[in-house]
């Protein structure tokens, strides 16, 4: 499958925006009192969300997890509204109710971000069921980590999705760590993709730091899903370059392991490819980098200048006031 120049540039841009956004958050969360709550980042894993989302149509749905920033930005969420939400501001995409961990952006069909590990797959079954029920040509993507594949809900969801041939792409972002546990310490099978066999669906292992490989796998899975052949499990092998959260000292991650994976940066890889293929010039790349930085700086300014919600706004948005007729 040939990937167009435009698609490669789109993915490069998407990964760069995500990296700049999170590099900024890495900085900001160290400043006392700046960002409330935990800070959980996907730095170095950008090829997964950017590659998968590049394969999607606007009507497709994504379900994300605690490492969501890249997925949401790649899906086209407004960086200003995301940053304001992370700051806990009223102008945030969820009015300060979700914070950095549960960002929901229904405007771009990012219907929910769940931080309950393994919470996403059963919900993806539901959204995909709705897509099938309405005979839409659309799919649901569910992003989750290697830890989630140990939850019972993951197995229930894969079984049901396969049984009903639901249009779901289960994307496992295997970043080699679930909390402080290295992959081998929490899962016996070498590849999580092998679990697809148990549910009679295609399973594929992909280099999760190669955005074009991720994109190709997602295109193939999407094609299978919309042609009513059911779900696919894609395992993207990647690496958690930062800790579980930014407060994590990473004492259990070998320094040389981290360094080796930082070398395998998915952005550098695509940039080098694009440069050598003549898809982009050095100047144009630098200009793109500068533009992404500007977007992030604007988002920070927007967030900082935005007001906090007033305390009693906490009481809003629990229920819809239904009109029953």
């Amino acid at each position, binding site marked *: 499958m040939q990937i167009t120049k435009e698609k490669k540039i789109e993915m490069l841009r998407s990964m760069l925006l995500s990296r700049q956004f999170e590099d900024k958050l890495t900085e900001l969360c160290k400043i006392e009192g700046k960002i409330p709550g935990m800070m959980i980042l996907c730095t170095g894993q950008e090829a997964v969300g950017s590659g998968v989302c590049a394969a999607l149509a606007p009507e497709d749905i994504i*379900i994300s997890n605690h490492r969501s920033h890249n997925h949401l930005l790649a899906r086209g969420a407004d960086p200003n509204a995301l940053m304001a939400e992370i700051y806990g501001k009223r102008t945030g995409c969820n009015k*300060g109710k*979700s914070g950095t961990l549960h960002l929901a952006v229904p405007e771009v069909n990012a219907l929910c971000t769940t931080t309950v590990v393994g919470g996403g797959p059963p919900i993806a079954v539901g959204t995909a069921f709705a897509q099938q029920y309405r005979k839409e040509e659309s799919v649901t993507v569910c992003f989750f980590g290697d830890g989630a594949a140990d939850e019972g809900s993951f197995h*229930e969801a894969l079984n049901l999705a396969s049984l009903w041939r639901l249009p779901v792409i289960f994307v496992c972002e295997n970043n080699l760590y679930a909390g402080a546990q290295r992959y081998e310490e929490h899962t016996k099978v070498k590849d999580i993709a092998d679990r697809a066999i148990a549910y009679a669906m295609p399973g594929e292992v992909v280099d999760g730091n190669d955005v074009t490989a991720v994109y190709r796998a997602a295109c193939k899975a999407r094609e299978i899903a919309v042609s009513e052949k059911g779900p696919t499990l894609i395992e993207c092998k990647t690496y958690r370059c930062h800790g579980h959260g930014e407060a994590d000292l990473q004492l259990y991650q070998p320094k040389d392991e981290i360094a080796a994976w930082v070398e395998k940066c998915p952005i550098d890889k695509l940039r080098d490819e694009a440069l050598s293929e003549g898809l982009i010039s050095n100047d144009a790349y630098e200009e793109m980098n500068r533009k992404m930085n500007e977007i992030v700086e604007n988002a920070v300014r927007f967030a900082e200048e935005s007001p906090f919600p007033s305390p009693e706004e906490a009481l809003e948005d*629990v229920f*819809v006031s*239904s009109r029953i*007729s």
Partner: protein
Amino acid sequence: MNQLGMGQAVNQALREEMMRDSGVFIAGEGIGVGIMESPMLPTFGLLKDFGPERVKDTPVSEAAIAGLAVGAAAAGLRPVVEILFSPFFTLASDMIVNHAAKLRYLSGGKSTFPLVVRIKNASGHGAGCQHSHNLEAWAAHCPGLKVVMPSTPADAKGLLKSAIRDDNPVIFIENMALYFQPGPVPDEEYLTPIGKAEIKRQGKDVTVVAWSNMVGLALRAADQFSQEGVEVEIVDVRTLAPLDKETILASVRKTGRLVVIHEANRTGGFAGEISAIVMEEALASLKAPLRRVTGPDIPVPASPPLESFYIPNEENLISAIREII
């Protein structure tokens, strides 16, 4: 008026709402083809009339069933899913408690989750504590859930129709003993509002607050007191969340005496909540200390004499009323 059991009334409600709205579908274990086939059961005949696209028999996968509801609701359908017996709620509870109840709030009010979880409750059948457990107080304790527990077939029909049209998640708990106790159900279409208690019997001397199967028991006890010249008022709350506290308080202000009865065990039971509301808002009206009649703090036992000991009976209620009049 037809004489129907509660299962038949629920069946009518499902039927009418499925005919009215093509977005309504039902799912659960054995709801299409079940172990028991009886016209007294709630989903009898629905598979034949609505087909397998809208009547979804599921695997034994409560997390996936509840996730199906959450996702399908997020994507615009109106799922009505069934939890076979109330203790299995725990298997579905992450999807209900952490997702159905919270995702609207986390979206800052952007998303809606119009879903109904029907839970069948079954004490009195010798099935034991893993098939019998009154857990309404758990559900009512979760902000974001509505909790409905009808006591009559007519209420069950009208309340379920309202629940399906409600844009919020509704937990609808059916006591299975009531499936086999026929009562009048209006022929014409009607809705019963969620959040409205009903005075099932007028009285001036003592208020009994009850729900579900305890309402019938309270009515029988009231008949007995009537012969002695003591008029008991029965408030059927019908909905625990939102609770119609105005109707409860107005009744207590009138009678000056209160007994709350529920089948669930005592500690942390919903009678405590109702008692606290009355103490805070109508203490001056009380002519005697209030009383709670509940199951003891034990799991529901299996052997008939043990189970009968667990379930509050008319004698328990009569003694409690005698203590305060």
